[in-house]
């Protein structure tokens, strides 16, 4: 509080608000000490402090009231409590049976099947070798990756926000094509998995919300 005008060394009385806050112990420690020293030698201010203390005493004796006995039950009846802990809810999303797990693993690996079949078919040709296929495949992935990076950069330049571009180029240049291939596979697998989860969620009746009584 900066409404001061009270100089302890002088004969001036502290303002009434200061005496009142002093009576409540609400001044800063230094002010508290200063006012205490003044009050000890000034009957006028001592009377002011006593009057404040009387009001504070009366206020502090005000009791707390008790609500009606049925109050807690009345509140709980109006509140919906999700009584299922987070961990239990998380577990519900996981498959419950061996068949369920098989389904999940199947769903996750299914996108790889056409890739494997395609590779097998390609390698069955006498002209196609593993190293040749690898060279061709990685070349394609690299080209695609660069096209994406170039597209992003072009878009960024168009929008005028290019501060982060050099950083992105530095990062992109360091990504091996194999990582990009794995990342693409993961995205496909996650798409399948989330589709499966959503389907399962929609079929499960919601049992998580209960009325408390």
């Amino acid at each position, binding site marked *: *509080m900066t409404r001061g005008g009270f100089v302890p060394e002088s004969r001036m009385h502290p303002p009434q608000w200061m005496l009142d*806050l002093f009576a409540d112990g609400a001044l800063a420690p230094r002010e508290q000490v200063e006012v205490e020293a003044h009050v000890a030698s000034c009957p006028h201010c001592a009377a002011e402090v006593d009057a404040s203390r009387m009001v504070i005493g009366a*206020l502090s004796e*005000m009791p*707390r*009231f008790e609500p009606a006995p049925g109050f807690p039950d009345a509140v*709980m009846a*109006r*509140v919906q*409590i999700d009584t299922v802990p987070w961990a239990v809810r998380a577990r519900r999303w996981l498959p419950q049976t061996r068949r369920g797990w098989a389904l999940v693993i199947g769903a996750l690996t299914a996108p790889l099947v056409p890739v494997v079949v395609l590779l097998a078919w390609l390698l069955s040709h006498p002209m196609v070798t593993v190293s040749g296929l690898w060279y061709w495949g990685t070349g394609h992935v690299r080209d695609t990756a660069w096209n994406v990076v170039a597209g992003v950069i072009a878009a960024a330049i168009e929008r005028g926000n290019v501060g982060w571009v050099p950083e992105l180029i530095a990062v992109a240049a360091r990504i091996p094509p194999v990582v990009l291939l794995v990342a693409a596979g993961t995205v496909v697998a996650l798409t399948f998995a989330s589709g499966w989860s959503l389907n399962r969620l929609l079929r499960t009746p919601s049992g998580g919300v209960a009325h408390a009584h």
Partner: protein
Amino acid sequence: MRSGPSMSNVATIAATDSELVVRARSGSEAAYRELLARYQRPVFSLVYRMVRNREQAEDLAQETFVKVFQNITRYDPKYKFSSWIFKIANNVALDALRRRNPVTISLDGAAHAETAEQVEASRTDVASEDANPLEALEARQLGGAIEQAVGTLRPEYRTAILLRHVEGRPYEEIAEIMDVPLGTVKTYIHRARSELRGTLAHLR
């Protein structure tokens, strides 16, 4: 849900407010009930002295707890739980006062009595003994000189003074609850006590 005192009940009673909130969030009814046990009297007392009508105060205190519990996932643990619940209780009470008397009870709080006659005139909600039993109870509970005097304070002074002297909250927490600067709280409380001095002198 409530059986004899088990280890978990003992742990609930010993838990801090924040711990209870964490348990309540994970669906523990015991945690909700312990928070109710801790705060039903403080919340009801504050709201009752704000609206000065027991029946309405019961409804508003219920409303406070329902709001708190339904939004418990939004509670920010960097604030004290008590500050949060008192803030909601005070807002609920102020809304009710504004609905009841939109002209005299504004944020500026124009209505406050200083003389004994004004105090008497302002006692619209404190019924006489010949009314129904609930109103008689109100008259007994809020009929004392200090209760009457507090009832004449403008709402923001009343909130500050009740939090300070009935709930024993520090000035800093009252500032947080009322969403005003610390200096404003000091002014509210000092002016409220100053008005009370005058009113009590007239009533005695």
